[in-house]
C-alpha cells in the first residue's frame, strides 16, 4: 500500500482526539444558540490545526491537501461548531498570496460562484469593496481572506472586521452562520495569487472541503446507526438483526466508503497538481463533491429511517449530522452543478478522450 504520510497520521490522531473530547452535545446546542466557542477555538489554535496548509517557513504546519483532509474530515465528523475548515482554506489562500496568517478565526469570501469582490490599490494599501452572501461564520470571525481581482490580476486580501459590516445574519439548516457581508474598507495586506493557485479553482477547493466534511459526518452517521441498530430492540431482538435493516445499513456503508474514497482521491490529486506546478485537479475536485453530495442524501435518508421517531427529535444528536449533510451537499455547488460542469468539459473533448483522460489522471 502507498501508506499515509507520518504527518497525516499524527494530525489525524491529534484532531480526532481533540474534537472527540471537546465537542459534545451541550457545545453543539450552545453554538446553535449563538454562544461563542472561544475555548474550543483556543485549543484548536494551540494545536496549530488552522495552519495545516501554511508552509513551515510562514509558521504553519506545512501539510498538503492530504494532511488537510484529515483535519477537515474530523471537523465534519465531530461537527466542530467553529470556522476551522474556513480557517484552513483561508490559510491556504493567504499563503498562496504571500501573506501571513493571523492567529484568529478567519473565513473566506466570496463563497458563491456568481459573486465577486473588488480589490483596489489605495495609496500604499488596498481597499476591498462589494457584497458577499452566505459567508460562513461571517459574524463570528475576526478576519476574512477575500479573493478578488485587482487591475485584472487575481488577488487575496486579508480583511479585518472593521472593513465589513454584516448586512444580514443568516444561517444554513444546521444553524451554522451564513451571513451577508458588505465590504468597504482597508485591507491589512493584499497580494497577488501565485501561479500555483489557479483562481478558477478556489470554488472547487471549497467544494473539496465541504466534500471532506461530508465524508467525516458520514463516518459518524454510520457508526451511530450501527450502534443504534444494535441497541434498539423491537419484536424481542435488536433491530439490526432484521434483514431489512441490515440491507439498508449495508447500502449506507457502500455510500460512506465511496464518499471517503472520492475525497481522498481529490486531496491526493490536489497535492499532485501543487507539486507539478500548473497541474490541475479540477476533475477530481468535481468528482469528490458530486460523489459526497450524492452520498449525503442517501445516507441521511437511511439513517433517519433506522432511527425511527427518536431520530426526528431535537433531543437526539442525529440531527447534528443530518442537518449538516443537507447543508453541505448544497454549499460550494451541488452535485448537479459540478456534474454539469464536468459533463460539459468531457463533451468538449469528445468520447474518444474519455478513457485515456481518466487513466492519465492516475
Amino acid at each position, binding site marked *: *500500500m*502507498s*501508506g*499515509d504520510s507520518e504527518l497525516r497520521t499524527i494530525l489525524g490522531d491529534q484532531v480526532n482526539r481533540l474534537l472527540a473530547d471537546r465537542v459534545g452535545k451541550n457545545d453543539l446546542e450552545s453554538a446553535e444558540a449563538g454562544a461563542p466557542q472561544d475555548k474550543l477555538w483556543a485549543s484548536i489554535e494551540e494545536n496549530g490545526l488552522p495552519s495545516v496548509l501554511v508552509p513551515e517557513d510562514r509558521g504553519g504546519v506545512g501539510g498538503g491537501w492530504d494532511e488537510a483532509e484529515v483535519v477537515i474530515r474530523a471537523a465534519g465528523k465531530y461537527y466542530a461548531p467553529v470556522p476551522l475548515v474556513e480557517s484552513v482554506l483561508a490559510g491556504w489562500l493567504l499563503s498562496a498570496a504571500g501573506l501571513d496568517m493571523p492567529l484568529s478565526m478567519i473565513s473566506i469570501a466570496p463563497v458563491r460562484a456568481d459573486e465577486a469582490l473588488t480589490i483596489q490599490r489605495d495609496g500604499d494599501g488596498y481597499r476591498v469593496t462589494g457584497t458577499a452572501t452566505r459567508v460562513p461564520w461571517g459574524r463570528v470571525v475576526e478576519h476574512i481572506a477575500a479573493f478578488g481581482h485587482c487591475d485584472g490580476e487575481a488577488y487575496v486580501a486579508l480583511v479585518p472586521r472593521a472593513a465589513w459590516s454584516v448586512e444580514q445574519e443568516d444561517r444554513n439548516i444546521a444553524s451554522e452562520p451564513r451571513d451577508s457581508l458588505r465590504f468597504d474598507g482597508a485591507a491589512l495586506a493584499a497580494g497577488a495569487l501565485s501561479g500555483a493557485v489557479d483562481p478558477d479553482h478556489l470554488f472547487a477547493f471549497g467544494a473539496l472541503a465541504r466534500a471532506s466534511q461530508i465524508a467525516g459526518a458520514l463516518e459518524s452517521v*454510520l*457508526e451511530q446507526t*450501527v450502534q443504534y*441498530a*444494535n441497541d434498539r430492540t423491537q419484536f424481542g431482538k435488536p433491530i*439490526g*438483526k432484521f*434483514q431489512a*435493516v*441490515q*440491507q439498508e*445499513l*449495508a*447500502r449506507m*456503508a*457502500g*455510500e*460512506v*466508503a*465511496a464518499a*471517503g*474514497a*472520492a475525497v*481522498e*482521491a481529490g486531496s*491526493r490529486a490536489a497535492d499532485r497538481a501543487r507539486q507539478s506546478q500548473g497541474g490541475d485537479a479540477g*476533475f*477530481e475536485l*468535481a*468528482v469528490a463533491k*458530486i*460523489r459526497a453530495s*450524492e452520498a449525503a442524501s442517501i445516507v441521511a435518508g437511511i439513517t433517519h429511517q433506522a432511527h425511527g421517531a427518536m431520530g426526528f427529535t431535537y433531543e437526539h444528536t442525529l440531527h447534528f449530522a443530518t442537518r449538516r449533510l443537507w447543508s453541505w451537499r448544497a454549499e460550494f455547488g451541488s*452535485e*448537479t452543478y*459540478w*456534474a*454539469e*460542469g*464536468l*459533463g*460539459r468539459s*468531457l*463533451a*468538449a473533448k*469528445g*468520447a474518444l478522450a*474519455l*478513457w485515456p483522460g*481518466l*487513466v492519465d*489522471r*492516475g
Partner: protein
Amino acid sequence: MHSFRFEPAELPPETAAMRAEVREFLNDNLADYPSAMRARSWAGYDAEFSEKMGQAGFLGLTYPKEYGGHGRTAFERYVMLEEMLAAGAPVSAHWIADRQSGPLILNFGTEELKQRIVPAIARGEAFFCIGMSEPDSGSDLASIRTRATRTEGGWLINGTKVWTSGAHLVHYMIALVRTDPEAERKHDGMSQILIDLRNTDGISIRPIKNLAGEEHFNECVFEDAFVPDANLVGVEGEGWSQVMAELAFERSGPERYMSSYQLIFEMLNEVSKDTTAAGATAVGRLVAHLATLRSMSISVAAKLQAGEDPALDGSVVKELGTLFEQSIPVIAHQTLEREPSPDQGDDFGQALAYTTQAAPSFSLRGGTREIIRGIIARGLGLR
C-alpha cells in the same frame, strides 16, 4: 466493525508499459470491432481472440512462471483488465479460467493438476465455466445436491447444474459437488471437481436462451459421468471454504463497474454532438461514479498485491458497481430522447438496447445484491 476506508493507492510506474502493450494489442487485433459488439463487454465470446491474448502473454499474468504464468503484479493485471474492458474486448472465453479457475487450482490443486491445466489457461487454450448453481440451489449454495460417488479410480457425478455461463462452449467445469451426503452440517461434505466437458460421457449441456434471446448460460445434466481421482481440486470435504475463496476473486475485479462502459461512451458521443445541460449533467455524474469506483478498485488491487484479504472490500465495490451499472441504461433512457433499437439502431441505440436487457443480471450473478449486502452487514458487525 470493519474499516470501510479504501486507502488510496497509485498504480506503480511499471503498469504504464503494460497499458501501452495492451493498447497496441487492441489496436492490432480489435480496431474494426463494432460498437454494438463492444457493448457486450466481457460477455463477448471469441476463442481466437483469447488465444491471441494468451500468445501475447496477457493471460495468467500473476501466476508463477513455472506454471506458464508471467509473475506480474496485481496492478499490472488490473491495468490489463481495465484496458480490455474499456475497449469492450470479447474476453468471455478465457475470463473465468483466468480470473478464478487458474488461481483456484494454483491455491488448492495438486502439483500434477497445476502442471496439467494452468499452463493451458495461460496460453488461452483452456476455457472454464463455474458449476455452482443448481435448480434448487441459488443463493443457498450450500444446499446443492449434485453428488460425486466413489468408484474405481474416480467419481461418478449425478445431478444438474444450471445457469452455467459458457458451458456449451468451454472445455472444463469446476463443479461444487456433494462428496459426503452423510455430513452433519450442510456446509461440510462438499468438494470441488474438475470436469472435462468435451471428453466425458454422461453429460448433456443445453443452452438456455436468456431474455434477450441469446444463448449464454446452460443447464448441465450429469448422469454417471466419470471423473478420475486426479481431478479432485483441493481437499475432499473442503469445497465450501474453497468456493468462498474463489468467490472473493470473482467479486473483486473491475468488471463490476466497467461492463457497461460502451454505453457511457456512446452517451458522451451524443452529448458531444448536442450538449444540453441535462446531457452534460447526466454524463458528468456517471463519470464521477466511474472515477470513484476506479479509485476503489485500485485500492482493492493494492490489497491483493499486499496479500491481504480483499473479500469484504470486493463486496463493497460489487454493491456500488452494480447499482452504478444498472443506473446507466436508465439515465441514458431518461436523458436522451431515443428508443433502444437492437438491430437497425445506431451505435447509441444498439448499446442502449443491449445494456438495458443485460442490466438485471448484474446484481444476480456472482452473488445477488441481497447476499452481498448480507456480507457487508456482517462486516458492520450486525450478524
